[in-house]
C-alpha cells in the first residue's frame, strides 16, 4: 500500500507524461511529411499567363511543370524544390503577346509519379 499523497504525485506524473506525449503527437502529425503528397494552388493569372504555387509537404524534390491548352503544350519546365518549401512560385506564359482563350491546365508531376492539375478558363 502507498499513501494517497505519494499516489497523487505518481498519478499526476503519469498524467503529465501522457499529456506531453499527446502534445508531441499533435506537433508530429501537424507537420508530418507524407510520402508523395504535395498541393498546388493558383496565385495569379493574367491575360496570357498563369502563376501557381507548389506546397511541398513531401520527400519529393524534383517537379515537372507543364502548361497545357487546346491539346498543345505551351510551356514546360522542371524545378527542384526542397522538402517543406512552401513558397515556390511557377509562372508560365501561354502565348507571348497574344490573348489566350479557352481552358488552360497546369500540370505538375513530382519525381514519385504523383500528378496534380489546376485549370483556368480564359475568356
Amino acid at each position: 500500500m502507498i499513501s494517497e499523497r505519494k499516489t497523487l504525485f505518481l498519478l499526476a506524473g503519469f498524467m503529465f507524461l501522457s499529456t506531453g506525449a499527446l502534445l508531441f503527437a499533435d506537433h508530429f502529425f501537424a507537420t508530418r511529411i507524407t510520402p508523395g503528397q504535395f498541393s498546388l494552388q493558383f496565385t495569379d493569372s493574367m491575360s496570357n499567363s498563369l502563376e501557381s504555387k507548389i506546397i511541398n509537404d513531401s520527400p519529393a524534390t524534383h517537379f515537372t511543370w507543364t502548361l497545357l491548352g487546346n491539346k498543345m503544350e505551351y510551356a514546360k519546365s522542371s524545378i527542384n524544390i526542397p522538402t517543406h518549401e512552401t513558397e515556390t512560385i511557377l509562372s508560365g506564359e501561354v502565348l507571348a503577346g497574344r490573348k489566350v482563350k479557352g481552358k488552360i491546365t497546369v500540370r505538375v508531376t513530382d519525381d514519385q509519379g504523383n500528378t496534380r492539375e489546376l485549370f483556368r478558363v480564359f475568356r
Partner: protein
Amino acid sequence: MALTTLLFFAAIGLVLFLPGTALLSFLERKSPFATPLERAVLIPSLSIVLVDFFMLSFDLFGIPQKYWTILLAIGIFSLGSFSLARVKKTSDESSIHHEEEPERSVSKTFIAVFILLLVLKTFYFFPNVLSNTTDLGHHLYWVKKIALDHRLPIYEKQDIVIDDRGNYSISNPEPISDFIIGEHLTLAAIQMISGVDFDSAFSSIILFIVHILSLFALSLLARRLFEPLPSSEILSTLTLLLGGVLYGLGVPQMKYVVGGVVGNTYANLFIPVLFLCLIMAFRTKRTALFSLVVILLFGLAYTHHLSMFVTVIVLLVAIGIRLALSPKTMWGVVMKPFLTPWPMILFGIGTLFFFVLWKPAYIANTAVNTVVGTPEKTEHLGFTTTQLLYAVGEPRLVLGFFGLVFLFVWWYRKKTFDVNAVALLLGWTIPLVVLVLFPDVVSIDLPSGRVANYLIAPLCILSALLITVAVHVFRQKHILPASFLFATTTLFLAILFFNGYLDNDSVFRQSPLQSEKTRALRDAAHYLADDIPRDGIVLHDHINIPGDSWIKLDFMRDYNYPFYRAYLFRYDRASDRTEKCTLYVISSPHSDEAKKCISDLYIRAVLVNQTIDGAQFEHFKDFEKVYTNPFYAIYTYDK
C-alpha cells in the same frame, strides 16, 4: 513550440486547478473533509464552475473576456480565498476541530490499473490527436468567437432561405439551442491565456484530461459509497477497471473525447464528483459539502442539458427511494442540512443566474419543452434488451443487475450498507433503465443511446460490488477450496477482459489514420479563406469531407458559414432542410436550379472531395480549379 507548450501547461494549471484549490483550501480551513485523491477530482470540477462563473459575470458587467481579465479574476479570487483560509485557520486554532480523516493508502493494483488505463487511452489517442470530427469543429467555432470578440457569443446562425417568388437569399441570424455556454468557457480561457493555436489538439487534450479525471472520480465514489466494507479499496480498483480499461475506447469514453462531445465529457466528471460530495456531506454533515453539491449542480446545468436532466431525475428518484427505505432519518440527515444558510444562499444565487441573469440557450429558447412528450424519432423510441446489452457491455449489464438485486436484498436483511449509498445507486440505475427501455411509459423524448451511456457508471460500481462481495464471501466462509476459487476468479476475469478488450479492439480497427486527410482539409480551408475574394458565398460538402465543420474556423463569419451539402436524407425532411441550393450546386452544378442558386446567392467557390465530387466541376466551363491537394479541390465560379 517549447514556449507554447509551457504556456499551455501553465494555462491548464491556472484555469483547471488554481481556483478550485483556493476554494477548497478556504472550505477545508478548519479540517479537511476530502482525501488527497478526492481533492484531485474536486479541484478541477470546482475550477471549471468558478471560471464559468467569472466569465458569465464579466458578461453581465460588460467586462471584456480577455486573458488578463480572466487571470485577474482567478488571481484575486485565489488570493482572497487563500488569505481568508489562513486568517480563519489562525483564529480558529483554539476552537473545536472537526475530526480529521486519517491518511489513507492506495493499493499498488489501483495504481497499476490507472497506469494501464492511461497507457491504453494515450496509445489510442496518439494517432487521432489531430481532430477531424464535426462536433469539435462546431464547438471550437464558439470558443474562437469568444477569443476573437472578447465577449460571450449569442448562439445563432444564418441559413439559405427561399421566398414566395422562388428566389434564394441568406436569412437573418436565428437563435439555436444546440450549445450551452459552459461547454466553451474553460476552453476559451485556456486558449486566451496560453495563446495556443486553434489548429492544434489543445481542446482534445483538455477533454482527455477531464475524461481521465471522470473515471478517477467514479472509482473514488465507489470507495466512498461502500466505505464501511473492508474491501472498498478493491471495489474502487474494480470500478476503475470495469469503467475505464474494459470498453475504455468506445462511446462514451475515448470516442467522446476524440469526437469532441464536450458537454457530455465535462458532465461525466461533474456527475460522480457531485454524488461524491453528496455522500461525503451525508456522512460528515459538513455544510461546505452541501454547498459544493449546489455549486456543482449549477455548474452541470451550465454545461450539459441532457446530463442535468438525467441527474435531476436520478436525484429525485433517489430521494424517493431514500424516503421509502428509512423515512425516520430523512429529514435530519438528508433535507435539513440543505436548508442551512450557505447552501440556500448559493442555491438562490444559482437560480437567479440560471433563470434571470444569464439563461443558457436551452432555457432562453425553451428547448427544454421538447423532451417532454411521446417519443417520435426512431432513435428516441427506446432500446431492446439486446441493444442495451450492446450499449453498456454484456458483463457490466448482467453483473450490474445482479449487483443491484444483491445490494437491495443485503441492505434489507443486514442493513450493512449506508442507506444513502443504497438509495443513490438504486435511484441512479432504475430510472435510467426505464428511460432507455420504456421511454413511452414515462413520456420522455430523449435519444435512448445517449441515456444508456449514463447507465454505465452505476453498473460499473454495482458489478464491482458483486465481484468484490462474492470473492470476499467465498474466501471468508471457505465455501470453495482456495485453489478452485482462484481458478474460477481468474477464469471469470479472463472472460470479462476478453469481452472488454474485444470492444477496444474493434474501436482500434475502426480508426484508420486520418491525420493526412485532416491536414489536407485544414490547408485547403486556409487557402479558401485567405486567397479567394470574400465578396461571394462559399459552399462545401459535408458528406464526403470528414471534419468539414473546421472549415468555418477560417472564416468566422457565421456558425453556419460556409454553407454545406448535408446528408441527402435531410433534404427530404420537411422540418430540416427547406433549401436545396447546397444540394444542387454540389451534386449537379450544370442544372438550371444550381445556376439560379449561384446567381441569387452569388456563390463563388466550392470545396469538395476531389475523387468523389470533383468530376462534376471538371468539365463545366464556368468553374475553374484553383486549388488541389491529395484529397480535396477548390473550384471557383467565374462567369
